[in-house]
């Protein structure tokens, strides 16, 4: 019971830290907005004369001192109001949330590929380090790390769309709407559109994860408990999967959490190559057309994803390994 209490305290403290980071991100977003964007232009455009502008500014409270405005911004943010997009003339959060399913399904597809391939490949490279296949996989992974993700996408499009004509190169294809969620996973066309982008996104994470799985497995295989398990007559497969892999998952979870930022950046690149209508593609459109509210809202949203992922990783690490001293983790 005491351990549970300590774990609960850890989770609560971790959530407090997460809230603090979000607060900092919101303040940065507010600063960027104030420095770069003129909210009046978002509402009335450029054509209104200056006297009328000043009156409007006063009416809307835009001439208030900045702490007051910051208070209003934070108050709005808590209620999900982060401003209005100058391109779409709609609340920025709604614009971004409408694009979220596309990015999420792309990341989901890529993660499935990474998971299904990196675990067997990494385990194989760890248990048979000298085999020809293992050396081939490791050498290919050096090559994979050296190819930028956008080039992988371009090569895949050249081969499978331009030359062979097997798979579509752009967009999401047919989608089905389920409540607020627009999914491409339920139609054949949507799934076909997902294959190349998901492969591209996974190609950059795969080499990294194969190396991680291999490294973590090698560490575990050197421990005494593995020798004990072998000595008591457990089959090799059982030793690898039930014993070593289980313990190797812990460092893997921690490192995966640290990769979230990188994963978001690669998703942005992949969406650009395939004109995938997700959040990253939207963000670049906002940058090109200087839609400041949309840009800052994207930053806040990505910050939120980042903070949630890191908090979950920390809590998951705690649950996977009861040995982690709650006092040590600060």
């Amino acid at each position, binding site marked *: 019971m005491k351990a549970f209490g300590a774990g609960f305290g850890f989770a609560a403290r971790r959530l407090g830290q997460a809230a603090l980071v979000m607060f900092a991100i919101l303040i940065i977003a507010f600063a960027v907005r104030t420095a770069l964007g003129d909210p009046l232009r978002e509402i009335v455009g450029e054509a209104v004369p200056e006297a009328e502008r000043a009156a409007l500014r006063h009416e809307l409270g835009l001439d208030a001192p900045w702490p007051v405005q910051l208070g209003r911004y934070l108050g709005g943010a808590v209620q999900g109001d982060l401003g209005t997009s100058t391109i779409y003339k709609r609340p920025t959060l709604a614009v971004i949330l409408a694009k979220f399913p596309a990015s999420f399904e792309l990341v989901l597809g890529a993660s499935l590929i990474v998971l299904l391939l990196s675990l067997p490949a990494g385990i194989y490279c760890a248990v048979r380090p000298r085999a020809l296949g293992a050396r081939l996989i490791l050498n290919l992974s050096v090559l994979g*790390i050296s190819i930028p993700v956008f080039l992988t996408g371009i090569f895949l499009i*050249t081969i499978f769309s331009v030359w062979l004509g097997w798979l579509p190169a752009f967009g999401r294809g047919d989608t089905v709407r389920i409540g607020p969620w627009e999914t491409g996973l339920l139609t054949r066309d949507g799934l076909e559109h997902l294959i190349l982008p998901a492969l591209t996104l996974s190609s950059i994470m795969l080499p990294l994860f194969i190396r991680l799985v291999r490294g973590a497995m090698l560490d575990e295989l050197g421990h005494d408990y593995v020798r004990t398990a072998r000595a008591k007559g457990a089959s090799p497969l059982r030793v690898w999967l039930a014993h070593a892999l289980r313990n190797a998952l812990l460092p893997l979870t921690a490192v995966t959490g640290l990769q979230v*930022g990188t994963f978001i950046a690669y998703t942005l690149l992949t969406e650009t190559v395939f004109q995938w209508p997700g959040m990253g593609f939207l963000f*670049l459109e906002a*940058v090109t057309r200087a839609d400041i509210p949309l840009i800052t809202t994207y930053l806040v949203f990505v910050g939120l994803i980042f903070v949630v992922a890191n908090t979950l990783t920390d809590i998951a690490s705690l649950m996977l390994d009861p040995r982690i001293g709650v006092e040590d983790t600060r």
Partner: protein
Amino acid sequence: MSADAPPNRRSALRAFADRHKGAAIAALVLGALALAASLAPLIAPQDAFDLASFDVLDANLPPAWLDGSDPRFLLGTDAQGRDLLSAILYGTRISLTVGLLAVAIAAAIGVPLGLLAGYAKGTIDTVVTRVADIQLSFSTLMMAIIALALFRAAFGGESLGRFAVPLLAVVIGLAEWPYLARTARAATQVEAAKDYIRAARALGLSTSGIMWRHILPNIASPLIVVATTQIAGAIMAEAALSFLGLGMPVTKPSLGTLIRSGYDLMFAGAWWVTIIPGLVLIGLLVSVNVLGDALRDALDPRGRAG
């Protein structure tokens, strides 16, 4: 050669090359690319940044080995009638310049901070380590994307294009310093505990003298290894940013810009504008990475480099 012959630089180099055949090839490829890039203004058939010298009538010509090509353009031309070979030479020059400058900036910030954190310990150490950890968790590429996106939104695409080289170098360098700081700190902690440093301290040498003249030369190996991998990282980041339209402009294309501008032409059949610069970029990155791995084996057998 007898075993007690004095070690000779030439034979040491040859032994290194024998042991790391891949590294030797990588060094050759990298050397050739770097030489060609640095001599670009002398050997390129055309000034790739002089828009007035292009002729739109020459646009989208294929490489010399395909039908419809023009012998003046060995690798073909892009949509503006720019000679692709010249564009690649100049583009590689930009990619290498940004990569080296970025790592120089990262080292100028990271190495002193890492040395100080590792040697002084205490509060400085805690602060440096914390800041480095936080920054690393945000990812180099994402930080650079956000910084340049804000710059572009604030000052417009034109100013971004004008200051692209120094901007890219600073942004990537600022995003990459934690890697060098971490390595310098870890290696300094190991060195600082050794007897020769204790002796130097007992002799009354100044702290900065000990750090720069005694510790720094002894932690150079892991730093060189990490710096090499960071150069590859910086070149890749520059290409990605230019591909996203947040880096080099079309008027001064880097390899990433060329890939981007060629990508729009690919479905019209002009694959070479994208694929050839893409292959050069991969050749550059693979050779730097392979060289980095070999340097790690040779200089840092204990694996101190992060």
